[in-house]
């Protein structure tokens, strides 16, 4: 009997050497004449343990990590093929507290299955949601998604069911399903991890959306910075066609759903839905005014459901276990779970899927273990480059769309970027303006010109040239950008800038000098 060994194929694991580890395991097994079966799984999302090698034993999967290629002979010597003890061992993977305490619904299979094995997917409850959906009318599917309380996971948190309902109700011979896989926010990778670690769940979710609203064509708009996800998605789509989960006759239902991946080209603004649609049409990614909403006039002028990767990937479990099951998780109007991403200067970075309501402090310290540098955490940016900087005094805020907004924050796509006390918040504010200037689509003046002015004003403010006047100018400029911009890039850039200024005014007063640790 050959032993099954798991070595992740996820981009993060690869960046930390998983490729060399996999090779070393195969070579060492050959040298010792042991039969093994190597599975390249997704990442479990505990990056301080990556590359995480798992061995399947009678008692369950046993974890070793972070493993380097040079550790492999020692692991064999220690009998790791039978789950033997070793300095890098962590016992049963499922018992690792970081994983055990999570509530993995959307990420239920990630790191567990072989991402490209349809058999594995089916054996782990895959495609049960679609099967249920095919027995329902479009309106009934829309109702189930509405009842689940699922809201858009791309950041704006608009109820998915209501969006689908609009598309369902809009008559048209051609409708589209578009997945926003542009994942432009710094500090986010949950979309990428799903696409690399469980691509079929996204395909299934989009197919259900197609059945719900009567759309026959889907596109995944993927950022070109994700070549690994691109390969995995294409392979998974081919397998889904092969097995009739996609194509002219989805699972013998007589209904068509086609799916194709399209690549972006390095423009942050193309994550905004109307810009994304322009880009899919082969144009410059300039914002279209809303209304009309994409739900009514979207891709090529047709009714279009556009949702984030995680939104679609959360639909299969809703259709499998039922709306009530999903809705039981969460608090207030934030139902279900969110895959939080702990990033930046954090000791145990990774993916933590939890029900809404967990506090920032629990995420940062109970899961994250504090900063990577060992210095005090001074600020965290939540919700991407357009999200506010949150000072330590507010770490007890619960992650709930409405509650977090009360402290001026934005849960967004669940990305959390940690900075220790060496951070210069004036530099971060300047960067926010600079980023806006670099990524502006150029359609409106407050964003295009305002952001460039913003950089100059912050430079003068920090240099101490008439600081009182400069601060007034900066606040005024932010006011204009907030209210005069066509989309959230110009409209929300003031959020990181003003939160930095309001919570960390001392950084804007003089060049910051930090004492050595």
């Amino acid at each position: 009997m050959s032993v099954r060994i798991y070595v992740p194929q996820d981009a993060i694991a690869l960046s930390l050497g998983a490729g060399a580890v996999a090779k070393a395991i195969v070579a060492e097994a050959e040298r010792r004449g042991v039969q093994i079966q190597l599975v390249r799984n997704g990442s479990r999302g505990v990056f301080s343990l990556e590359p995480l090698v798992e061995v399947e034993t009678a008692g369950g999967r046993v974890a070793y990590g972070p493993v380097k290629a040079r550790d492999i002979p020692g692991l064999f010597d220690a009998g790791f093929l039978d789950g033997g003890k070793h300095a890098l061992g962590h016992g049963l993977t499922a018992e690792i507290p970081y994983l055990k305490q999570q509530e993995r619904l959307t990420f239920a299979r990630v790191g567990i299955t072989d991402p490209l094995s349809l058999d594995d997917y089916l054996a782990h409850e895959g495609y049960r949601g679609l099967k249920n959906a095919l027995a329902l009318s479009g309106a009934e599917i829309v109702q189930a998604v509405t009842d689940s309380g699922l809201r858009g996971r791309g950041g704006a948190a608009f109820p998915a069911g209501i969006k689908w309902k609009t598309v369902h109700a809009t008559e048209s011979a051609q409708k589209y399903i578009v997945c926003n896989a542009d994942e432009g926010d710094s500090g986010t990778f949950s979309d990428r991890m799903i696409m690399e670690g469980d691509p079929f769940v996204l395909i299934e979710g989009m197919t259900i959306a197609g059945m719900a609203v009567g759309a026959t064509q889907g596109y995944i708009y993927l950022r070109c910075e994700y070549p690994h996800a691109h390969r995995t998605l294409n392979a998974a789509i081919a397998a889904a066609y092969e097995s009739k989960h996609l194509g002219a006759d989805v699972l013998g239902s007589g209904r068509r759903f086609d799916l194709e991946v399209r690549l972006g080209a390095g423009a942050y603004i193309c994550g905004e839905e109307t810009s994304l649609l322009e880009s899919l049409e082969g144009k410059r990614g300039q914002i279209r005014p809303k209304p009309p909403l994409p739900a009514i006039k979207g891709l090529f002028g047709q009714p279009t459901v556009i949702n984030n990767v995680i939104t679609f990937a959360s639909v299969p479990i809703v259709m499998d276990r039922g709306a009530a099951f999903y809705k039981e998780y969460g608090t207030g109007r934030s139902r279900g779970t969110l895959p939080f991403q702990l990033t930046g200067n954090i000791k145990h970075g990774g993916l933590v899927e939890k029900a809404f309501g967990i506090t920032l402090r629990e995420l940062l310290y109970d899961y994250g273990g504090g900063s990577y540098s060992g210095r005090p955490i001074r600020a965290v940016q939540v919700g991407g480059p357009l999200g506010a900087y949150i000072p330590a005094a507010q770490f007890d805020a619960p992650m709930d769309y409405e509650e977090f907004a009360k402290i001026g924050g934005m849960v967004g796509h669940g990305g959390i970027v940690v900075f220790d006390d060496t951070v210069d918040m004036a530099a971060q504010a300047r960067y926010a303006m600079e980023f806006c200037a670099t990524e502006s689509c150029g359609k409106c003046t407050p964003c295009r010109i305002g952001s460039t002015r913003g950089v100059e004003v912050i430079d003068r403010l920090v240099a101490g040239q008439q600081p009182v006047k400069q601060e007034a100018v900066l606040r005024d400029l932010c006011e204009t950008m907030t209210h005069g911009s066509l989309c959230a890039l110009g409209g929300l850039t003031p959020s990181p800038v003003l939160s930095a200024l309001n919570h960390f005014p001392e950084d804007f007063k003089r060049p910051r000098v930090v004492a050595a640790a």
Partner: protein
Amino acid sequence: MKGQVQEQPLRPMPAARPLAAAERAKVLEVIVRLRALPGALLPVLHGVQDALGYVPPGAVTLIASELNLTRAEVHGVITFYHYFRSTKPGKQVLQLCRAEACQSLGATALEAHVKQKLGVDFHGTTADGRYTLEPVYCLGNCACGPSLMLDGELHGRVDAESFDELVGGAS
């Protein structure tokens, strides 16, 4: 026009030189393969850049006429997207992450080191033609930064020392 800030020199479009026959054949092959797609322009530009490493200005007229677009439209799209380039890159493209999560782990200092070590600014190609340096805003490796991608291969926890090791003796 995209906003201009100091660290981001805008790339002017170099003057169009006629396409060499081999290049022209490759561009045509891409067009023929992809022209039927709805919204074919981005896939075509990706195809051309995959095949040639860049989108030669001399290809604009050909792409425009084959896709029934104006030259201004094609040119406008190429210049809008950071990823498409109009000049031939070095042997390898090095994308260095500049975004917040990597900043929190020292990306700004690494950026200075990289530029100094390679002797180029962003969008520049090293004198020996080995590397073209490009800025990138997040590679989805934000818990293990600073990050960079070298010809599609992701590297995490990069510091000055490991960077020097990665690029070997380049200067």
